[in-house]
């Protein structure tokens, strides 16, 4: 089997260890002998004409975020097609914010989003920093570390990834974290997210492979360290 991963704006959005998500996706495929084609993308024109199963977009600093938002906005229609074609998108923090309609900073104009997720984000004066534990519908957990001042509000009917058991999540108010539409996942969790949430990493890989292959599950891996790290993080203080 083969999987194709695009790391969007890799040279620009590279803080808080988000590269750990790419490392995890690549390794968990390779450990199962799935061929990986990883492409580092610095501007979205580079994705045209190439099929990708997974798009990853991380968080960045404000300055970089502005440049990227302008570039990304030009490919709104392109990403609509990709999403309808069941491409998997994982977006963290700043990347997540750009999947909504817009990001409104304290000063200056709104940064345009690509409206894949029916949500918007506004800058706030509280910085939400600390460990996060998210509870999913099936009672399983996601663990990570959040660090953002933007507050994201989901429109009615948009599915969050889960409820926060610890931490602020989307906006520190409604108790939800992240958003999910089709195979698109946006979240504030750094940490990195995927290394110590191996089940979530595998969910993304499975959905990506199902675009081309008729499979229902992945070959299991031994996740002893991952599970220890996950369980330890579930018990952390804020």
């Amino acid at each position: 089997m083969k999987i194709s991963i695009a790391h969007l704006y890799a040279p620009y959005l590279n803080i808080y260890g988000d590269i750990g998500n790419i490392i995890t996706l690549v390794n968990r495929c390779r450990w199962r002998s799935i061929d990986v084609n990883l492409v580092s993308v610095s501007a979205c024109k580079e994705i045209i004409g190439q099929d990708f199963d997974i798009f990853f977009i991380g968080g960045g600093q404000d300055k970089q975020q502005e440049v990227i938002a302008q570039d990304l906005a030009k490919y709104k229609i392109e990403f609509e097609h990709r999403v309808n074609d069941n491409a998997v998108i994982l977006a963290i923090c700043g990347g997540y914010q750009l999947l909504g309609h817009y990001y409104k900073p304290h000063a200056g104009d709104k940064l345009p989003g690509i409206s894949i997720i029916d949500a918007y984000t506004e800058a706030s004066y509280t910085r939400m920093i600390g460990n996060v534990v998210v509870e999913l519908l099936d009672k399983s957990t996601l663990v990570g570390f959040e660090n953002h001042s933007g507050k994201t509000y989901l429109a009615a009917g948009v599915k969050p990834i889960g409820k926060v058991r610890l931490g602020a999540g989307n906006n520190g108010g409604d108790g939800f974290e992240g958003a999910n539409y089709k195979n698109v996942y946006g979240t504030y969790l750094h940490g990195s997210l995927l290394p110590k949430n191996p089940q979530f990493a595998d969910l993304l890989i499975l959905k990506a492979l199902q675009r081309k292959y008729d499979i229902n599950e992945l070959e299991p891996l031994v996740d002893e360290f991952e599970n220890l790290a996950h369980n330890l993080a579930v018990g952390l203080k804020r």
Partner: protein
Amino acid sequence: MNNLNNLEKLALYIGKTLIFLTKLTKISQGTNLPGKVSLKLAPALFQKLSKDKAIIAISGTNGKSTTSGLIYNCLTANGFKVVHNRQGANLITGLTTTLINASNLFGQIDCDYLLLEIDEATLPNVSSQSQIDYLVVTNLFRDQLDRFGELDTTKKLIEKGIINSQITLILNADDPNVCQIEARDNKKVFYGLDSANIVNSQTGNQTRELAYCKLCNCEIAYHSVFYNQLGDWYCPNCNNKRPLPDVIIASLEAKGIDVQAKAIIDLKEYKLTYSLPGLFNAYNISGCLALSYALNLNIDKTLEGLLKYKPLFGRSEIIHLHNQNIIIQLIKNPAGASLALSSIKPDEIIIIAINDNLADGRDISWLWDTQFELLNHHQNKIIVSGKRLYDMAVRLKHANFDKTKIICLPDLKVAIDEGFKQANGKGNLRILPTYTCLLELQNIFKDLGYKMSGLN
């Protein structure tokens, strides 16, 4: 005269008493608590005690402690009396404790220079209270971003600290972010390394801090990269480029535990010897020499001061204990940690200890930005310890290090014992602790009978 009012005198006495008591009881908060209490009582105490003193400040992400320690040696070798916060307590509370300790009961401090290592976030506060005369900025890397939000914020904090044009700036020319710091018409002295003679250390495709030209906003490019974003940089779009440094370290040669180097200061060449290994310490030496140049110190005495410098505990000194060579190196952010990893030999026994206390940075995501891939062919076992040992184990596994060779031991003392056992007197035992693990390690080593040369 500082003219302390009665409340300030009282705060000073209380501070001195607390320093005495904390020394007596060996409380670990000893470097901050007295200053904290005294400032609560008399908020202007730092300002009063530092009034009219010549102040040398050292700020930046990495190398503050080592650079200021080197400067201390050079100043004292030149016969100056120096008050220095050498315990590394670099917030306003720690700085105030240092001043209280150095002051007599009238609030007078008998010294030629106050040498203050200052946290980036504390710099504007210090600067607004007292005139800083010299400010050394070492570099700007990602460090505990959970404190400041982001790198640009750190840069802005330093710019806010440059409150007037009377501060002479000693800047790392090779770091485009430091070099392009917004200043008024401040006098600037630049330092760096020489591109022709310094070979890039093997840091692979590590994510680099992006830098932008302040004139035209274009992304900075490099003729040669020395380390991460440090290098001979230029703007591909306009004439902006790295200025020719006033002080350059031009060649490095390891001779046992010593390093022999060539320095070019104001176009004149000098030979120097010191016992701090590695590229990064060459920057610390270069920064120290740049300040010495700005102060017009006697060069022979300055070089003597460098030669005599003994590294702080946990800053890559080589320790001999129980017939074992041990190298302890503090790791706290991707840039420094990757550099530490690049000097490890394949037959060493490694202990990596990761905590996530406030002083370590609560967010351990930086482990993923660090090039642990440098260890993927490491032959011997790696012991992981500290509160976040399993995150470290996952990181090593993803760096394609053989996971059956990872030993997880949460208790640091147990991990150290196992390290001694595995190393068995041969080769190096290499310990890489985060800050609070290093503090723990200090006590463990004391108990093992090691005499500390310098404490953190």
